[in-house]
């Protein structure tokens, strides 16, 4: 007998190592227990999922959910577009230069002749922000009160008073 054959027969002695006669049936019993436990786990998970999905379906109709989501998307898109447009206007340097070098829009006229626009200086030396506001007839219907003998004092009724203290007389526009 060769050494290889002896070696092989020696290794084959490991076949005598066995777990015992009852191993197979015990193993099967444990396997059944494991399968039952797994089935219970699976059914508990699927039951939980079913309950969650049913809850959500009852709470919010899918149709209304889709409508709400679409509306949100539209609002966000509109806001984004507005933001983009505003940032474009503020960043327009050419427009700023034009504004700064522009001659007064309104010709110099006596203050009282300005009937339709109020000029407000927002920041001195930077730019003038001209707001067109329709005046009421304050400057047209000016009433002069006399205070007795003192003709230097001219009172003006409140109706003729400028609406806002921020308003500057028109001659300061030509500074």
């Amino acid at each position, binding site marked *: 007998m060769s*050494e290889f054959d002896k070696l092989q027969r020696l290794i084959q*002695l*490991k076949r*005598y190592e*066995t777990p015992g006669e009852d191993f197979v049936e015990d*193993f099967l019993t444990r396997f059944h227990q494991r399968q039952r436990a797994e089935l219970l786990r699976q059914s508990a998970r699927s039951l939980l999922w079913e309950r969650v999905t049913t809850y959500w379906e009852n709470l919010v109709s899918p149709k209304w959910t889709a409508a709400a989501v679409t509306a949100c998307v539209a609002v966000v898109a509109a806001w984004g577009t507005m933001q983009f447009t505003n940032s474009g206007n503020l960043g327009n340097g050419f427009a700023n230069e034009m504004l700064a070098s522009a001659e007064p829009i309104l010709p110099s006229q006596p203050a009282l002749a300005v009937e339709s626009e109020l000029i407000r200086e927002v920041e001195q030396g930077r730019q003038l922000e001209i707001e067109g506001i329709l005046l009421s007839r304050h400057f047209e219907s000016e009433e002069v009160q006399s205070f007795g003998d003192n003709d230097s004092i001219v009172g003006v009724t409140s109706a003729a008073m400028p609406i806002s203290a921020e308003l500057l007389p028109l001659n300061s526009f030509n500074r």
Partner: protein
Amino acid sequence: METAIAPESTPSTSSGEDRILVERAQAGDTRAFDDLVRKYTPKLYGLVYNMTSNRDDTADLLQEIFAKAYRALKRFQGKSSFYTWIYSISVNMTLNFLKKRGRYSKVSMDDVDSGILNDPTFIEITTANRDTVREVNINELQKRLNDALMKLSEDHRTVVTMYDIQGLQHNEIAKILGVSEGTVRSRLFYAHRLLQSYLEDLVK
């Protein structure tokens, strides 16, 4: 539990029986799957035990193997035999387990069947030869064989287990492992050379 004295016969002749059991199990007959478990547990136990050298790990792994086979049974199309299929699952899961376990692990060996006392090979190595008296008891022999196998790499140990211990043929091992027959033969050759050096005193 069968006493493993003779080389374990491959169930190639019972592939027809396996096919019937598999079809019944796929249709939902749990008793058919139980029959498959009873049939293949001893064989798969030997495979996994000799690869891991730990009977507790073997029992746990076998549970995982059959659980996986049960879950995957519906996808089994019968292109290979059930035997090859479940052997492949067993080898792959055991190799994955061994990789995770690492090199250092506790060895836990099974009891040796008393039938070994009548085995000619055992008698030969435990009786004195012409010049020297040698006493090798069962536990010592078991430990020596186990230590020698554990020194092999997982791939070499696998082919030795399947060929030498379980009696599978080269082509069957090749199908199960998904390699060529040549690869199986070269791994066996190399493994036997190593084992010969580890067990030299017992072989001579």
